[in-house]
């Protein structure tokens, strides 16, 4: 025990130093689709409420980076909590064959010695990543991310959502929620499925799924309580990630917990492989010290993880809370949603599409392209974006140091809108950004409407997928307005 997943993790996992969650980050994309637009447009589907929509320049990897950046801000990542392994789970990996976690690793500028693994293209993979990380030793960065939609007018389109969540898991005084036990029930049955490359998943029968999941969930819950040495009435908060809100609430109503955590399905949607992390993050953001939280994941069986918050959680403020991100979302027209997801093709500007990025050129500039690291002249302090080897007066070579800029904010010096340049979602809003403490870069702004942009506006950087050419995803950074 204590070195990997077992049928159940009991108190023995806590014999050593206290182990659990040190920090977390939840990332919600900026756009919200008002689901009432759907039936007006397409004649079916939709419903009430909203869902979160990843931008045209986001994918599960880029959203994973954003969630991980938020999680790492809350941890002593250069010291005791430095991640030793990265585990990435999503049901919609940007690449097959090639590892996706390595792009996250590069964007976070983790040491090469830190391994980065993908967990497999299923919802269950993220439950596995979390349980594996909680029940082993050493510091783990678990990143979970998903985008979920379906054909126009479908239930998955209306009820799905896009999001990411990440956790720094390890030992010591920084633990804000201690892992005290868990259990799993595995079931092989046809609930949801998608062949690689398909644009949507299919579902067998909701009722059949509910009748399979609820007993599996109750059994796993019972086993986890036993493993943790707790009774049902000792659980303060239960957070359920289920394929549908209905299945989730069916299970939650039967486990006897004091309080059910909002699963965010009415505002964000069912976020697939991101949902276990998202509901756990929501539980942590609403928990007080000394509370027990049961996370239940219903995906090809059931996984239950029980945590107890520590006094440290009172001092832990998330870098960007779920509540604040819920407040700052902006509406998106349904037609644009469809084009972003590739469900309808919109006439592009009559300009050449970008060529694929060079694999070798990108490999030489990984720190710049993925980590947004420029160079700083060690004598004059001039910042170069991208990094340069020669000083601006041309007199000195290789007297530069790294200038990591991903977390540096900036101010808009001037801006424009380009209605002719190629973009997957024209027009391009573009600004010349002056970074605090030096450095300037003319760069595209994303998650931004033109009328919001002004000289003097404040900007932060975000990791995005600029375009895909020849199957190569071109990841780099964009600016976005600082909100909230």
């Amino acid at each position, binding site marked *: 025990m204590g070195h990997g997943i077992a049928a159940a993790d009991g108190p023995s996992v806590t014999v050593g130093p206290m182990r659990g969650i040190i920090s977390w980050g939840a990332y919600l994309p900026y756009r919200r689709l008002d689901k009432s637009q759907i039936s007006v447009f397409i004649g079916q589907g939709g419903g009430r409420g909203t869902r979160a929509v990843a931008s045209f320049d986001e994918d599960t990897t880029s959203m994973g980076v954003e969630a991980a950046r938020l999680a790492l801000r809350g941890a002593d990542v250069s010291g005791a909590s430095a991640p030793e392994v990265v585990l990435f789970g999503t049901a919609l990996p940007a690449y097959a064959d090639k590892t996706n976690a390595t792009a996250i690793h590069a964007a976070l500028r983790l040491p090469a010695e830190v391994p980065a693994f993908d967990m497999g293209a299923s919802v269950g993979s993220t439950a596995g990543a979390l349980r594996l990380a909680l029940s082993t030793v050493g510091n783990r960065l678990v990143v979970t991310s998903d985008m979920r939609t379906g054909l126009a007018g479908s239930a998955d389109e209306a009820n799905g959502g896009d999001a990411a969540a990440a956790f720094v898991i390890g030992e010591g005084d920084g633990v804000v929620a201690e892992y005290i036990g868990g259990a799993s029930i595995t079931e092989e049955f046809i609930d949801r499925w998608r062949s690689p490359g398909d644009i949507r998943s299919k579902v067998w029968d909701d009722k059949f799924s509910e009748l399979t999941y609820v007993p599996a969930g109750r059994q796993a819950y019972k086993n986890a309580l036993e493993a943790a040495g707790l009774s049902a009435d000792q659980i303060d908060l239960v957070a359920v990630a289920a394929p549908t809100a209905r299945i989730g609430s069916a299970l939650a109503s039967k486990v006897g917990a004091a309080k059910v955590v909002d699963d965010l399905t009415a505002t964000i949607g069912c976020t697939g492989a991101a949902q276990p992390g998202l509901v756990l993050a929501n539980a942590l953001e609403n928990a007080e010290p000394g509370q027990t939280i049961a996370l239940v994941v219903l995906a090809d069986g059931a996984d239950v993880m029980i945590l107890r918050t520590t006094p440290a959680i009172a001092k832990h403020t998330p870098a960007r809370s779920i509540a604040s991100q819920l407040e700052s979302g902006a509406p998106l027209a349904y037609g644009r949603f469809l084009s972003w997801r590739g469900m309808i093709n919109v006439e592009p500007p009559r*300009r050449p599409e970008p060529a694929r990025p060079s694999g070798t050129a990108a490999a030489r500039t990984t720190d710049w392209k993925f980590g947004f690291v420029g160079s700083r002249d060690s004598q004059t302090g001039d910042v170069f974006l991208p990094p340069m080897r020669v000083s601006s007066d041309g007199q000195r070579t290789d007297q530069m140091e790294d200038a990591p800029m991903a977390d540096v904010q900036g101010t808009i010096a001037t801006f424009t809108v380009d209605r*002719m340049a190629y973009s997957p979602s024209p027009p391009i809003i573009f600004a010349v950004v002056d970074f605090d403490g030096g450095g300037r870069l*003319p760069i595209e702004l994303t998650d931004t409407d033109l009328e919001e942009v002004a000289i003097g506006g404040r900007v932060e950087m975000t990791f995005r997928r600029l375009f895909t050419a020849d199957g190569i995803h071109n990841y780099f950074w964009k600016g976005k307005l600082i909100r909230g």
Partner: protein
Amino acid sequence: MGCTNFVENWGASLDDMMIDAANEAYASAGVNKDDVDAYWFGTAQSAMSGIALARALQLQNKPVTRVENYCATGSEALRQASYALASGAYDLCMVVGAEKVKDTGFQGLNANPIPNDGTARTLTAAAMFSMIVPAYGNKYGVDEETMRAALSHIAVKNHYNGARNSRAQFRKEITVETVEKAPKMAGTLGLFDCAGVADGSAAAIVCRAEDAHKYTDKPIYVKALSFIAGNGGGLTDPNYDYTTFPEIAACAVDAYAQAGVTNAREQVAMAEVHDCFTPTELLLMEDLQFSARGTAWRDVLDGVFDLDGELPVNPDGGLKSFGHPTGASGLRMMFEAFLQLRGEVPEERKIHSLAEGRKLALTHNLGGYPGEMVSFISLLGAELD
């Protein structure tokens, strides 16, 4: 010199246009193909190597150097040929600039992709130059309406001039209302704030000044050739404010020193400048020292640079009327200077400044974007001293 019409030349190939421009230049100078010792061939991306010109003209064992330097390519080809003559290596050279833009099927000018890491910006030139407008207005306290009026004046002026030029692509006068009602392309720039896109070719026969009268009674003398390749500093330097092109300001200082010009506003008779977008021409009036900083908008509105003004700018219609076949544009500008200085333009396009005693024509090319550009300036005159 020779110059084809600049048009969307669906029926003519690059070779066709180069043959026509070259033959016009041979005839203009009264020289035979075999008299020419060496060739400089400017094209940005319509062909590679000197072979493209040698094959088109069927040159017989002649050296041909292919030149590329962004939108200043044609000018740069002439600069290189001039230095080869000055060195004494050759006695008679030909410069041909040509571009076939309209075979791509795309809008605008699009650079051939060079393999890269995917992090470079992918904006259009229109968007990059549009950033000048708010920056200039803010710095000098020129309100949006006045800025708009100045930019529209530039567009109307250049189309007025182009309407009087049989070689121009667009030969219709336009009104301020047309400019201001046109669809927006980038920032506040509309369709008529942008230069057109055309195919074309232009050519020149060049020799040392002392040999010129062997070929013609009316040679045009090169008084200055200046070129600066910017180091891109403006893109990353927070002190750059998008209200000037430092490469061009420095290039102007160098060119005026070469030609002994001490007061450009009073000594230059005409200028062909790189009006890729209307705000570009506005800033050029200051960087070329025609207007004091922050006052070009007023000079523009006062008609200083109109065809009948004190210092006519783009009397042939400019890039606005001609479009911009990259490799040819620099030579097309020199062709207008050549015609004006020789008194060979039609009456309706004649400028008064030459008759009033000014003697120098200026041509100016830029390539790139605000913050990162190449700049070329020549000064030409009909008199040796």
